[in-house]
């Protein structure tokens, strides 16, 4: 099976699983699935950014742009329908990423993730300080659910919407991945100097991955905002950012299934151990360390095995 079809299968299976889980699961389970679906959008869009070779730490702050767009645009004086505002939020996030790509794409490797870290923090501080627009530290509350749903307060219907958005974005990112541009982005990610020497415009391709990945973050931010009914700077926290990065590190980013499985792993830890919330960070930490070290060890073993059998 080609890589493209495998990725398509992954997102479709995930979308279907969310809906099926929603129909059979309890009321609480619905909420967990909605969060999982929205976070899946985050990790999939994040994966697209990583294909160009840079690990951004501004993803969650850029997600905040989507959230604030929905909060502001869906309320008077704009009064846009929530879904329209969500799409607009995605576009604003992409636009911001385009502006941001000028300073941050000048940096590579460690410097890239430190500069995106700084950019994300600066953006979060802007959400806090520009109170007239963003409501300061309290944020903006009482955001409506999408009117397009027959019963906006139904979590099940919202879950179906999330699953649909997830599948659509998944198809989009999978097509990008398989396209000519996607292959070039990966080439740039692997060896920028070599790619440039054969006439690939590395800068434009890296910017493209960053912008399109940020679009997904903006959409996810919009969904979070309308689901929670509130956006506030405290929601844009390092914990969520670490979760997204950890999901990608644990699962690997070669295929779509990696980050999703990584996220599933982290979500299961949180849900299983929620009866002892004070220990969750430690359990999270221990499992993440084990997963990373074990993954490294297993990869090493695999290489040895392949070399022996080659």
């Amino acid at each position, binding site marked *: 099976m080609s890589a493209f079809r495998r990725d398509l299968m992954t997102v479709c299976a995930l979308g279907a699983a969310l809906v099926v889980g929603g129909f059979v699961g309890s009321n609480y389970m619905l909420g967990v699935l909605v969060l999982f679906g929205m976070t899946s959008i985050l990790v999939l869009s994040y994966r697209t950014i990583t294909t160009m070779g840079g690990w951004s730490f501004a993803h969650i702050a850029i997600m905040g742009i989507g959230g604030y767009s929905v909060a502001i645009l869906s309320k008077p004086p704009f009064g846009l329908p929530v879904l329209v505002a969500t799409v607009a939020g995605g576009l604003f996030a992409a636009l911001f990423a385009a502006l941001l790509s000028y300073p941050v794409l000048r*940096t590579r490797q*460690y410097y890239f993730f430190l500069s995106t870290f700084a950019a994300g923090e600066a953006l979060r501080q802007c959400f806090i300080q520009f109170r007239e627009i963003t409501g300061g530290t309290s944020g903006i509350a009482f955001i409506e659910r999408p009117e397009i749903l027959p019963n906006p307060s139904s979590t099940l219907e919202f879950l179906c919407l999330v699953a649909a958005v997830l599948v659509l974005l998944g198809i989009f990112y999978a097509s990008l991945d398989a396209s000519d541009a996607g292959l070039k982005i990966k080439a740039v990610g692997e060896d920028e100097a070599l790619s440039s020497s054969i006439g690939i415009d590395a800068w434009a391709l890296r910017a493209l991955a960053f912008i399109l990945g940020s679009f997904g973050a903006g959409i996810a931010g919009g969904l979070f905002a309308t689901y929670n009914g509130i956006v506030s700077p405290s929601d844009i926290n390092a914990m969520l950012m670490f979760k997204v990065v*950890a999901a990608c590190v644990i699962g690997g980013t070669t295929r779509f299934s990696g980050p999703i499985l990584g996220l599933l792993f982290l979500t299961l830890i949180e849900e299983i151990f929620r009866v002892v919330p004070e220990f969750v960070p430690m359990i999270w930490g221990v499992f993440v360390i084990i997963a990373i070290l074990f993954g*490294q060890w297993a990869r090493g073993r695999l290489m040895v095995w392949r070399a022996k059998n080659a």
Partner: protein
Amino acid sequence: MQILLNCLSLTSFYLCFALGLALVFGVMRIINFAHGEFFMIGAYATYLCISTLSPQVGGPVAWAIGAIVAAAVTGLLGLVLHRTMVVPLGDKPLAIFISTLALSYVIQTIVVQIFGPVGLSIAPPMRGVVNFGGAILPASRLVVIGVAVVLAAGLWVFLMRSEAGRRIRAVAQNPRGALLQGIRTEKVGRLTLILGSSIAGICGAAMGPISQISPYMGAGTLWKAFIIIIVGGIGNIWGAVAAAAIFGVLDTLMSQFGAGRFLALTSAAVMLFVLSVKPSGLFGEKE
């Protein structure tokens, strides 16, 4: 005058914390997220020493013992970290970053279980205040300034004059070249991590008495330290000193003149600006 002294003491806080990180990040190009937790452990070790020993030997001696214990414990942790994570994950800086982040959660939870989530306070071993023409400088702050100066100067001498220091610099500048010269980079990495971690521990001992100690005290400080070493230029001790001074003065003046709430925004913006204009930092050499 008071403002000047405040600038000086804030600079020493920043420098003290950034030094160990500058060493580890500058030489090995890895981000040890648990560096802040080593700093915290140093402070707790000092707390234990002062609260148990100071009735017998007096505050300053107990503090000095605490600082030594702190350096030893964190140095050991640095060694363990090197063995268990840095070596196996050698070529994957992100995996190291995430696993040291995970380690920092583990350390925090353990400290919460032992000492409780409510912060503690170290009774200041050195009381009293020094007067400088109407302005004051508490003795415990003088200690921090002293520790920062000694650490910075000591580190500089060590890197410039000793054989081990030369090897460390060689690895920092060009790991592959150093390897070809017969330098065992893994050994150098181990030494660097032990040294950097011990500095974090000593710093925790120095800062403990003038700040609240809590299981989470390291995480907040780490971010500022990164900004300082980036702005100062990686692998450059004098760059770190200069950047610490820049932020020491800038932050003191901003608090003084009513812009205290914009501190985090300015720091992040300065870092972003420096990285995009001159990624090697204000005082760093081009890589």
